[in-house]
Structure formats: structure tokens, C-alpha cells
């Protein structure tokens, strides 16, 4: 018997999911230990070992692979505790990194400061050198300047050096020479070059991404070193893989070099898990995933099995321009606070009561009414079965807070006010879903919704109704969703080369040379990570724009990496179509220019089997716990409550209904009915719809 382990270190909990060869899976949760997260990781691993009646050593000896999601880098940025970093850039451009393009997001708010400098100005040193717009050297590298900069860095005890020169992606020789000098003069110091981290046009974005990489590289490298030693001492001989922000995994060696690729990896397991559950629940590969916890709500879109990717990420106010899963996050969760604004209207969020003091009903000192308080008053939550009964909720206090702070001010009764909170937060979340779908040119009605997070399933059917989405899947493991996603992630690396040229003047051999270069790099990297050639999948794309536009649209180009003249025509057609869908117009025939070429490389890993349940028939009455009054469509209705853990494959329930698991509650509004699938996921669909027909329509190929 061998095991596979997914470990997701989150802000509050470390989630661990173990699967065995027979497909059985088990969940373990421990508290995260921020000062040394490895403590929490080993704690979780010890519990998993005990859960399998093994010593930690015997358990780890049987573990094939561990996939690990870590927030080490994210926390380093958010707390300002990354490596002491020196930054070297072109003379005359010292402040581009800290200017942040001179942008102040909240323009009318005079009372806030920009994020503190990642690299203070005294540690930003300039050197004489210059490459021009066509990659030619017009000023040679002044090596004395480099030595002088490094001398200052040495004095300041920097642990990391980032180097980013103008146009280095066309001609990296100066950056590479700086690294050589650095290795000689500052041996052991972590070095990041912009031509490696993000060889792509746009100076600030490249500077920032490279500086972030240097800033978080040393802490991540240290953590991984000690984690691997610890695992080895405890008998682990399998593969360790690290979760990345792009939804793929990578080896610890690469993670240490490209540390910034983990900065937004926290929620990145979500879309991967969503795809898995969507696929297993009925072969869906057009999916929107949502994850609603205590303070935040994440939404992401997956089309044709591919999660949407963005290069517009940021962490702690610092731009991260490498490809990340496009996960849209807003401040909406169970702890979101409801208030009446100065104009007399109801607002919910983005402020949150968090876990401490938490919602009023927790009885831990919270005084501001929250979404969870409203959920309780509306009967969606059971005061005696929250977290499986571990926390008794105080409905009276919740009602009083909503009355005083909301209902009285609006001249409404308490229930109407609670329902108002419920509606406003659902609408906020529906807006977030529009951002990832409608605003990207996709109709959400053509997607299945996959729901995660403790609070998600309480609200999902209302969000789905708001957007006309007809199919909602809630996995049984929804509370350890990201850990599940990690276990099924493939290795993934993204490559980019800037080549700016009018499309009708494209030098095809140059394009193919650049693609070949990236392909070689991809294959070398993945093979070094132990992936055989027949498991490497490459996709090729390009960023295009109409001539003189300033933003690009990415379209896929060729299947093979060898572009022909015909592929160019097809690429331009695809660009026109995508532009129209995104922005309401296109200009067929207008000249188009190429900006970047991209290769995305996937190394397919073995997927764990998940256990399938035996068919248990339609009748869910064995799982019926009782009834309680819950608010639907303007009135309280006696609503049947089911024990989710007792529901079997094939069980069928018609809304209104409530399904309870220890860590989550699924609210089925009267518009939906629900069926349990063979993996134990709850598949909710529009009432009266034929599930098979609906599924066929939403399934891959169904609509195309």
C-alpha cells in the first residue's frame, strides 16, 4: 500500500489529504504554525500516520509523493520579512521599481500610503550600460559600477540581488555578466536576473517581478531545504512537488530558483480541483469555481479544461507579471460585516469580523452583524450543528445586532434585513463571477459551477440563480478543496519571448527558432524533474494587438511549434474573434502586430484514484435528520434537513432542502434539486430540468 499526500498550508489551517492505492481518501486539519510552518506540516503528517495506524517513519516510507502548497513567500511579502535585497538597474532609471508607474488606485482617498518599498532606495544601485530598442549595445557595461554596487550591498549584508536592465530580454549579455561578477564578489548570495525571471517587454512589471523573486527566494530556499531534510530523516524517499501560482507544480529545485512563481499559489489548487470534480461529476470542462471562506471569495473560470491565466497579478501592492491563474478575489465571506452607509443604504463587506471576534452569533465579542448572523436567522445554519456542534451559535444576539444596526435604520423587520444582507452579499459575489466570465467574453450560463469553502455552499444556489447558471457541484471535500487540487496538479512551466513585429512582416524562421528555444528549455526542465517525453504536453500561443494599441490579447497559434504562413492567417482570425468577444468590436483587415510568443509546458503526473460509492438508489430518506424553518422566496418554510454523510450515490432531494456536513452546509433553494454522484459530490440542478440533458449541453462538445 502506498500513499499520496496533498498538504495545503493556509492562513489558519494546514489541510492534508491522503489517498491510498485503493482510492480511499482521508482529511486531516491542523493549525498552521506561522513562525515555522514545517511544524504544522509534520503535525499533520503525524496525524495522518496515526490515522493509518503507522508510525510517522513507516507512513512516510510508504508515501510516493507529497504535493505541497506553501504561503512562505506570500507571507514574506505581506509581512515585509523577505530577504534583504539589493537591486541593480540601468543608470538613469533608479526609481522605476518604486515609482510603481505613479499610480494611486483610490484616487479620492487622501488618507493612505503606498505600500512600503520592497527594496529601499539606498539598496537600488544603478550601473552605466544600455541596450537599445533593437537589442544593440549602445553603452557597454561599466564593470566598475557593478563592483561598486556590490560593495555597497556587501556592506549592507544583502542576501539577494535582483538585476533588471532595459531591453535585457532582447540582449541579456549585461545581466549575465553581472551575475558572473556577483558570483565572484558575493558568493552564496541569491541572484535573480530579469532575462530569466520574465524575459518580456514592460520595465516596471519586469523589475517588480524580478525584485519579488529575489525578495522571496532565500526564505523559500531555506524552508524547502529544512523541510526536505526533515522528511528524509523521517524516511521519506518519494517525490516532493511544490504548488505554483499557475495551477501547476514544480520540483523544489526549480521552486527555489523561481520562488516568485509560488506567490499566488494559495488559492491555485482551487481551479484544478474544480476541474477534477467537474470532470468526474459528468465530464464538464467548462467550469467556474468559487471558494467562499470567512473573509474572502475567490472566483475563477476554466474553459475547455484550461483555467484562465492572467499576467496582471499583484501581491501586497507589488506587481507580479508572470502568468498566474486568473483568480478574482473580493472581500466577501461569512464574516463580512453589514452596515448602513452615509447615504442610508445597506453595504455588506469588504470589512470582515474574521475568525476573532467573528460574527455576533459566535458569542466571542463580535458586535457587528455579519453574513453568518444573517444565515443563522434565515434558518440556513443550525445553531446546534455549526462545525459539527463544536460551536453553539447565539441566534438571539445575532437578531439583536441586525435589528439595531440594520433593520431599525432601514425601517424593516429583522428577517427582511437579514434577507437583505443575504441578497447583497450574493449579488456582490455574482458581480465577481461576472468579472471572470462576462467581462472576459464568456456567458456564465454555459458553465457548471463548482463550489468550495465553508460558507460557499450556503450561498451558491442563489449566486447561480442570479446568473442563470443551471448546474452547481459541491464536492464532499469542499472544505479541503485546494489540497485536493494539489494532488491532481500536473507540472507546469510557462515561457515567454518578446518579438515585436508587424504580423505581415513576421520572420517565420525567427518565430520558429524562438518557439524551438522555449520548447528545448521546457523539455530539459521537465525531464530534469523526471517527466518522460511522452508525458510532456506543449501549447503555443502569441500576444497580439492592432498596431498602435497598448494591450495585447493572447491567442493560441500552432499545435506543433512550427508556424506556417497558414497558421499566421488563422492566428489573426482568432485574434479578431477574441477581440470582438472581449471588447465589443474588431477590425478585420486592420494591421496586427506580434508582441510576445509563449509556450506553456505541462508534465502530466499520475492522478490518484478516488473511491467510488456503490449505487444507493434515489431515496434519501435514510439521511433525513428532521425539519427546520428556513427562509425562501419571502417566507419561512418547513425545510427538510439531511445528513450529508449518510447520503449515498444516486440519492435525490428536491429543494427547498438543507444538507449538513460537519464543516459545511448546502442550501438547496426551491429553484433547484440535487443528486449525489458516485464520488459523493452533490450535483444541484435547476428544478424540473432533465439532469442528463442539461449535463450533455454543458459537457465538453455539447455546446460547440
Amino acid at each position, binding site marked *: 500500500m502506498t500513499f499520496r499526500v496533498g498538504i495545503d498550508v493556509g492562513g489558519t489551517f494546514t489541510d492534508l489529504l491522503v489517498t491510498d492505492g485503493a482510492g480511499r481518501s482521508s482529511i486531516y486539519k491542523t493549525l498552521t504554525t506561522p513562525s515555522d510552518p514545517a511544524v504544522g506540516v509534520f503535525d499533520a503528517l503525524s496525524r495522518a500516520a496515526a490515522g493509518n495506524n503507522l508510525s510517522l517513519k513507516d507512513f512516510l516510507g510508504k508515501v510516493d509523493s507529497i504535493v505541497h502548497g506553501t504561503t512562505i513567500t506570500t507571507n514574506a511579502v505581506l509581512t515585509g520579512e523577505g530577504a534583504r535585497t539589493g537591486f541593480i538597474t540601468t543608470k538613469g532609471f533608479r*526609481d522605476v521599481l518604486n515609482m510603481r508607474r505613479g499610480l494611486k488606485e483610490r484616487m479620492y482617498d487622501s488618507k493612505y500610503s503606498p505600500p512600503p518599498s520592497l527594496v529601499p532606495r539606498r539598496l537600488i544601485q544603478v550601473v552605466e550600460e544600455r541596450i537599445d530598442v533593437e537589442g544593440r549595445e549602445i553603452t557597454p557595461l561599466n564593470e566598475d559600477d557593478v563592483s561598486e554596487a556590490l560593495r555597497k550591498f556587501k556592506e549592507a549584508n544583502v542576501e539577494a540581488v535582483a538585476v533588471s536592465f532595459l531591453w535585457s530580454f532582447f540582449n541579456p549579455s549585461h545581466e549575465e555578466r553581472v551575475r558572473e561578477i556577483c558570483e565572484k564578489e558575493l558568493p552564496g548570495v541569491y541572484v535573480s536576473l530579469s532575462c530569466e525571471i520574465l524575459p518580456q517587454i514592460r520595465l516596471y512589471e519586469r523589475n517588480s517581478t524580478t525584485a519579488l523573486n529575489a525578495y522571496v527566494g532565500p526564505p523559500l530556499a531555506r524552508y524547502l531545504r529544512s523541510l526536505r531534510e526533515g522528511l528524509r530523516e523521517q524516511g521519506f524517499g518519494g517525490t516532493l512537488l511544490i504548488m505554483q501560482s499557475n495551477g501547476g507544480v514544480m520540483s523544489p529545485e526549480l521552486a527555489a530558483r523561481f520562488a516568485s512563481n509560488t506567490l499566488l499559489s494559495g488559492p491555485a489548487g482551487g481551479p484544478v480541483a474544480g476541474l477534477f470534480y467537474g470532470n468526474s461529476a459528468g465530464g464538464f470542462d467548462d467550469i467556474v469555481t468559487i471558494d467562499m471562506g470567512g473573509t474572502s471569495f475567490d472566483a475563477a473560470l476554466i474553459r475547455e479544461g484550461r483555467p484562465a491565466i492572467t499576467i496582471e497579478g499583484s501581491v501586497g501592492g507589488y506587481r507580479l507579471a508572470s502568468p498566474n491563474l486568473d483568480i478574482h478575489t473580493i472581500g466577501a465571506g461569512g464574516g463580512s460585516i453589514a452596515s448602513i452607509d452615509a447615504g442610508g443604504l445597506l453595504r455588506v463587506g469588504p470589512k470582515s469580523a474574521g475568525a476573532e471576534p467573528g460574527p455576533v452569533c459566535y458569542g466571542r465579542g463580535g458586535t457587528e452583524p455579519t453574513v453568518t448572523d444573517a444565515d443563522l436567522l434565515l434558518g440556513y445554519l443550525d445553531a446546534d450543528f455549526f462545525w459539527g456542534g463544536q460551536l453553539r451559535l447565539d441566534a438571539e444576539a445575532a437578531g439583536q445586532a441586525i435589528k439595531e444596526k440594520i433593520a431599525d435604520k432601514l425601517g424593516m423587520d429583522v428577517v427582511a434585513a437579514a434577507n437583505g444582507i443575504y441578497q447583497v452579499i450574493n449579488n456582490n459575489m455574482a458581480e465577481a463571477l461576472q468579472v471572470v466570465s462576462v467581462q472576459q467574453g464568456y456567458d456564465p450560463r454555459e458553465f457548471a459551477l463548482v463550489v468550495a469553502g465553508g460558507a460557499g455552499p450556503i450561498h451558491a444556489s442563489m449566486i447561480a440563480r442570479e446568473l442563470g447558471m443551471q448546474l452547481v457541484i459541491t464536492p464532499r471535500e469542499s472544505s479541503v478543496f485546494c489540497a485536493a487540487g494539489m494532488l491532481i496538479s500536473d507540472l507546469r512551466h510557462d515561457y515567454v519571448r518578446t518579438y515585436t513585429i508587424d504580423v505581415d512582416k513576421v520572420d517565420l524562421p525567427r518565430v520558429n527558432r524562438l518557439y524551438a528555444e522555449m520548447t528545448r528549455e521546457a523539455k530539459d526542465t521537465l525531464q530534469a524533474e523526471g517527466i518522460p517525453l511522452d508525458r510532456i504536453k506543449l501549447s503555443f500561443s502569441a500576444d497580439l494587438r492592432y498596431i498602435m494599441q497598448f494591450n495585447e490579447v493572447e491567442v493560441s497559434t500552432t499545435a506543433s511549434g512550427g508556424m506556417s504562413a497558414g497558421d499566421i492567417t488563422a492566428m489573426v482570425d482568432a485574434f479578431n474573434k477574441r477581440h470582438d468577444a472581449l471588447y465589443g468590436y474588431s477590425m478585420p483587415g486592420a494591421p496586427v502586430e506580434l508582441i510576445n510568443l509563449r509556450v506553456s509546458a505541462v508534465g502530466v503526473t499520475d492522478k490518484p484514484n478516488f473511491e467510488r460509492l456503490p449505487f444507493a438508489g434515489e431515496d434519501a430518506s435514510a439521511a433525513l435528520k428532521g425539519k427546520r424553518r428556513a427562509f425562501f422566496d419571502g417566507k419561512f418554510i418547513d425545510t427538510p434537513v439531511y445528513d450529508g454523510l449518510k447520503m449515498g450515490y444516486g440519492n435525490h432531494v428536491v429543494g427547498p432542502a438543507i444538507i449538513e456536513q460537519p464543516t459545511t452546509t448546502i442550501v438547496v433553494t426551491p429553484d433547484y434539486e440535487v443528486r449525489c454522484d458516485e464520488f459523493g459530490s452533490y450535483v444541484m440542478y435547476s428544478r424540473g430540468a432533465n439532469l442528463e440533458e442539461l449535463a450533455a449541453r454543458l459537457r465538453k462538445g455539447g455546446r460547440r
Partner: protein
Amino acid sequence: MTDKPNVDPILVSVIANRLDAITKEIGMTMLRTSRSPIFSEARDFVTAIFDHKLRWVAQTGYIPVIAGTTSFSQKAIAQAFEGEIYEGDVFVLNDVYSGNNQPPDFAVTKPVFWKGELRFWAMAKGHHADSGGGGVAGYNPEAKDIWEDCLRIPPAKLYDRGKYNKQIWNFILYNMRVPFLVEGDLHCQVGAATVGERALLALLDKYGPETLEAAIDEWLAASEAHMRRELRQIPNGAYSAERKIDHDGVDKDKMVTIRLNVVVEDEDITFDFTGSDPQVRGFINSPYPNTVSSSYLALFSCLDPDLRMNDGSTKPVKVVAPEGSVVNCLPPVPTSADTVPTCETICEAGWLALSQAIPGQVQAPWARWCAPASAGINPRLGRPFAEIHFMSKGGGGATEGFDGWDHVGTVVCLGGLRSPDPELHELVTPYRISKYEYWPDSAGPGRWRGGMGVKYRWACLADGIPFANFGSGMRDETAPLGIMGGKGAPKSVGFIQRPDGTVVETDANTFYAMNSGDEWEIWNSGGGGFGNPLERPPERVLDDVLDELVSIEAARRDYGVAIDPQTMTINWEETKKLRGL
């Protein structure tokens, strides 16, 4: 409240949030698809929604100076075509004497018909790379009348009942130096308005027009109540201030004065510009919509940032500007620089006046804008370009509790003006940038100091490129002031260096030509300081010195902080003496 509203407050919130989100969806299209870097990189545009009664319902002011002008343009267009507005129409307007604020800011608006009835308008309005006339990228410092300033486009139909109106497109584009850019950006605006239309139709399908209208009534009333609550917190009184503009480009030895009296009476506020200079010959004259929008900018930036700008919240705000003055000009004077030096000056006067009433909420003046627009052919690409040199943005003013933001100017954008990327800039223009970094000692000292200004230098790689330098802040009188005991920042300076070594000092509102090998350098100032600089914690002054933002000399002179140049530490004893402690 005795009358029970016919929509509940929850639905009002939901609908208002959606309308707000739609103005952002319109903006997203503008950001992503425009050609002129002035839209996409600098975000020099706004979006708005009006209802069928022409009420200004929602907006996103990517650039605040234009934010308050959309309502004027919308009303002018609707009135000009009364009885001739059809489904599928798209309108355009740039004429400042027909309801617009500035010639290069083209308003494009699309009526939204639902079941055959006009229900809404979706507007995208932004700064084009050219607006004809004798200017460069929309700016003509030598214009002496509106015809030298720009091509006048009165309300006109770009699309008539869905049909592309070839005559008007050709007419506009034949009169532009960079038709390619203007054409692309007009398409982008039409696309953006169409994105707004799609979203509004979905909203109409969902709620129907009656519910939406009732919700909008409530929403505007709530916004008005919000504003009135804010105004009640400003002490009643009359507060006055005056600020100047360097000159109008034509009469270069004459400064132009704007006088402002802000009168607060309970829940109403009046911006009264009586006493401002008469209109001038050059292009800094402000049509009424620009003066109103600039007044909104000054006011809203001092109040609750959650306050939304629409017909409700602006109801208690009155703007009085005598006809024929520089703040409410009459034909035929030119106006194309009104959104920059004139708006900045109005805003400064507004803040200085309000600092007498609510000092803690006001910011010190930001560095004024002064930099060129240029246009021509890039010989490397054989392709036209038009560009405003946004990389020379100056620093923001300080406010109680917070230093000003660095390189965040100009105040007309309140920080929404994103600096261009130097590499994309070099890719498109025939310029090579050699300097783009903070100007040490450019920030106004204060308990909270101003934001840093910038030194910016570029070489020209082509011959005969015209530059229209526009703005102000190059005189001692127009340099950023400090407030509440804070000190001012230096005036901005600029010069052109020719290959033969000659140096030409540049002035605001003047044309220059550059040839291959010429280099232009701009030092754009920092923001004004807030509060007595002697009260700034010496550790923070030392930090600025270590970061080479403030010199050791300035630390001593302006902040009373003595720093030992050998050890780079604070000499506390001497500091106490310098600070009189």
C-alpha cells in the same frame, strides 16, 4: 420618511452596484483596446450612464478632471438631436461651445433602447491623440481662436440607426494628423459604449424599466443625502483664495489669476469665481463644464472617498462663474489647455480655501504639470505616433498624517494617471530615454513632506519633430505651496540641449522643434509639504537622507536635523539646537 418607497433599499443597493460595475466594464474596454497611449496607458478617459431623463446615474472617473463634464456633453447631444434619436445611433461631440469641456476629449454616447423605448445612454469619453487645428496631440499654445485650436465637431452621428456614417467619419479623420490613431480610438469608444449597452439591456430584461427608475430615484436621493451629511460637517462661512497660471502662451509676460470664494451654508456649498481674470487670448480658457468639473475635483477629494459622484451628490454644489471670464469663456477663444493648468489652479484655489475650514481633510498643492505633447512619423517604423510625455509627472501634496505620493501627478488625475512604460514608449516613438528618476530635494518639506518630483530626459532620434510644451508651475508664483506650516517645493524647470552644446531653457505653453541628437530634460517638481517641518521625526528625515531623496544640507536647512556625513547618523544635540528645543 412618510412616503414608503416602492423598491426596498436592498434592491436599490443591488441595482446601484450593478450600474457602477457597468461603468467599469465600459472602462475595461477603453483600457484594453485603445491605440493612443493617452487612453490605454495614461487612462485619460471617463465612463458614465444616464437615464432617459438625462439624469447622471453612474460614472467611473478614471481621470477626475473629466468626470464632472459628461453630463453637459450628454445633455447637449440629446438636445441637439431631440426627436431624431434612434436605436443603433452612436453620437460624438468635441465642440467646447456646444457642451464639451476640452477639444481633444471626444464624447461618444449610445442610446440604449429596450422594447423600442429609449431607456439609458452609455458614454465613453476620452482624450484623443489629435483634435485637428494647429496643435500637437490636441495642444496648440499659439492658438488665438477656437479654429486654430481644433476641429470643431458639434453633436453628430457616428452611426445612424446602426449604419456606419461614412461622411462624418471621413470628415473627422481627414482633418486629423494621426487619423489612424483617432479612428482606432473612436472604434474603441463605440465598442466600449456597446459593452455598456449590452449590460444595460441585461439589466432591463431582469428588472424592467419601472423598477430600475424607482431604484435610481432612491439611489440619487441617497447620494444627495450622503453629500449633505458631509457638507454639514464643514463650518459655515466664506473662504477665499487665489492662484495663478504662468501665462496663456500668447501673452507670455502676463500671469492669469483665478479668484475663488467658497461659501458654505449648512448643507449647500457654492464655488464662486467672481473676480477671476477676463478670458484671455491663449488656450487656457475654461468653458463652464471644465470649471464645474474642476470644482467637483477640489471638493470630492476632501470628503468621504466612498461618496459617489452623480446627479444626486452634486445637487447641493453650485458653481458661479461670470460669463466672459477665464473660467466661463465665450466664443471664439481657444481652450485646449483648460484641463491642465486651469484645472490645477482651480483645484489649488479650492483646497486653499477649504483649508481654512477643514484643514485636516485638505492636501497641499501637487506639482503642476509642464511637459510637451509631440507627434510625427517614427522613421524606424515608418509609422505615425502621438505622445504626451507623462513620464515627467511630479509629486503629490502632503496631507495631515500622510506624506504626498511620489511621481503621482498631476492633480487633475488625482493619481489615476499611469506613467507609460519606458520600453513601450521607445518602441513607438523616435526617442531614447536616458533619465527617469526622482529629483532629490524636490519635495516640499513638512511634518508630512510632499511626494518626490522627477527628472526626465530623452534624446530625439528623428528630425523636425514638433513639441507643444504645455502647463504651468515654471514660475515662483506657481510652484507648489506648503500648507498649515509646511513649505513649498521648487518651481519646475526644463531645457533642450543641442548637439553643438547650445542650451535652450524651455517655458510653458510654447512650441519647440527637435532634431536628431537634441536632448530635452525636464525637472518636474515635488508636492507641497503639510505642517511644520521641524516637527517631522528626525529618524524619518534620516531615512530620506540615506535614500538620497533629501540632501544633508536640506535636512539641516529645512528640517533642523543635523546629520554627520561620516557616520550618516543623527547628531541629536545639534538637532535639538537647530530645532530650538
